[in-house]
């Protein structure tokens, strides 16, 4: 257990160490310059209990994140950043200021500082007991679920992550460049792009690293071994561009399972080691595996106690108030590793976000004019996987487009079904359950009709 009043520095590295490469100024900033930017930003912040951090630039996001923390403010990191979602957050949390690098209204605190424009400063410390951030995952009926992160938890996890990554690399290079395609306001992106460079000899690339061409350009820009932090979706897209000019030391993938086929292609494309991370937003990264290694089983980080019961894993750590039971099903191997056996619940995953089908069905049925209906994962009803959900509805007065528009108001855009089939009735049995076989038949018929 951490001592309640123990402290650790925001960056546990030398002040002169390279911290971030900022693409817009084409400069590499040191840890000391980052600390000075944090101090300058912190001075400019109005007093508030919460800071809604919606900065889009990775460097300014990092500066705002720690500036708020040094002022004792709690970063609120919504996964939806549209006006309606932010308004709801402001209502729910009362005393808040919105930190934005593209301020939209006068109530926002502008994080428009020039990176590296404030000299150097000493690296501030934070108390382990301090609540640093609340990340949100999409919840039922549109209300996001909050997951609180103390500095103690983030500090502990970052050292564990670096220890495991270093082991994956074999001989860790002296200094590495890191390019991430995932946003820092999601747990995976926060841990592996924002926090890793605070303990590891890593220079964080801060540009618009999103499209395949941007990512390979960023990787090629470093005169150092590189680490790529991405998702299967981004990696699949990346394969369509030319490989980086130098091999990547390690490619990290998380948020969705990586197929063996894609894993081999990515390793051939990027060179270096392919590392897959398993995590859950309510905790953070939990386990690591090397899909193309001799033993490809998942290893849970040693900071977690893992108990398995009937395929369901429950993890405990002193940093969480209570044990968390994971939504995926695992099987234990003889060598103390774990193999993922699919989702244990009705949870679907799209674009790295999780949502329960029950919640999505409730949102569908809440639309005026929808008499019956359900949301399904095409892959699980024997249809080709498209990476998106489908829905089937009984709504005589509505068309597919208006249902989609209504759903977009209620659920995260990732979960809005791409295919919506309208039918006269759903073949429910006497217990009002819909048999999988009946659903398949119905969809086959509806698709046939559509095609004609």
């Amino acid at each position, binding site marked *: 257990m951490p001592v309640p009043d123990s402290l650790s520095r925001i960056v546990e590295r030398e002040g002169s160490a390279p911290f971030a490469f900022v693409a817009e100024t084409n400069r590499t900033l040191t840890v000391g310059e980052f600390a000075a930017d944090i101090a300058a930003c912190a001075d400019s912040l109005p007093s508030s209990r919460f800071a809604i951090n919606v900065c889009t630039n990775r460097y300014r996001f990092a500066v705002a994140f720690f500036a708020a923390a040094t002022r004792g403010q709690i970063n609120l990191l919504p996964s939806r950043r549209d006006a309606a979602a932010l308004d709801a957050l402001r209502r729910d949390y009362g005393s808040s200021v919105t930190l934005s690098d593209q301020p939209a209204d006068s109530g926002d605190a502008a994080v428009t500082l020039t990176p590296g424009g404030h000299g150097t400063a000493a690296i501030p410390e934070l108390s382990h007991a301090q609540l640093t951030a609340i990340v949100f995952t999409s919840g039922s009926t549109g209300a996001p679920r909050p997951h609180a992160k103390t500095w103690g938890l983030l500090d502990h996890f970052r050292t564990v992550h670096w220890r495991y990554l270093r082991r994956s690399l074999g001989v860790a290079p002296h200094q590495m460049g890191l390019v991430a395609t995932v946003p820092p306001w999601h747990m995976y992106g926060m841990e592996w792009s924002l926090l890793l460079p605070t303990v590891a000899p890593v220079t964080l690339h801060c540009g618009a690293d999103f499209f395949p061409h941007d990512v390979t350009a960023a990787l090629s820009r470093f005169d150092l071994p590189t680490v790529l932090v991405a998702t299967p979706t981004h990696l699949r897209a990346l394969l369509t561009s030319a490989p980086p000019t130098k091999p990547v030391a390690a490619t990290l993938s998380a948020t969705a399972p990586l197929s063996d086929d894609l894993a081999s292609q990515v390793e051939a494309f990027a060179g270096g080691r392919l590392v897959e991370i398993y995590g859950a937003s309510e905790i953070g990264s939990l386990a690591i595996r090397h899909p193309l290694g001799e033993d490809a089983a998942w290893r849970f980080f040693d900071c977690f106690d893992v108990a398995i019961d009937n395929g369901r894993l429950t993890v405990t750590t002193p940093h969480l108030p209570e044990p968390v039971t994971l939504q995926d099903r695992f099987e234990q191997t003889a060598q103390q590793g774990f193999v993922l056996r699919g989702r244990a619940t009705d949870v679907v995953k799209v674009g790295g976000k999780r949502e329960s089908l029950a919640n999505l069905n409730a949102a569908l049925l809440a639309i005026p004019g929808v008499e019956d209906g359900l949301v399904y994962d095409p892959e699980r009803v024997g249809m080709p996987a498209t990476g998106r959900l489908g829905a089937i509805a009984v709504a005589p007065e509505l068309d597919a487009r208006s249902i989609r528009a209504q759903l977009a108001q209620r659920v995260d*855009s990732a979960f809005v079904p791409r295919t919506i089939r309208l039918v006269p009735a759903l073949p429910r049995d006497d217990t009002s359950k819909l048999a999988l076989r009946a659903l398949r038949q119905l969809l086959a018929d509806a698709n046939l009709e559509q095609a004609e």
Partner: protein
Amino acid sequence: MAHLIVDALNLEDVSADEIDPDTIMFDDDGLGLDSIDALEIAVAIAEQFDVHLSAEDEATRDVFATLGSLTAHVMQEVDARP
């Protein structure tokens, strides 16, 4: 371009002819597309036209606004080739 988008994104109940060149693509009231779609569109454009979109380019946000602006950008890039 409308066909490319409809195909790349499996927009089953939107036909290519229906997409107005001025429809806002990334908006719940428009086509309701999101960042995963932007990635898919970029990949499809790279494969078909060998034009590589960059998010670092300030203009990309504007380019992606509507079907019309995206088409204009890709055509401009294609025409600019030696």
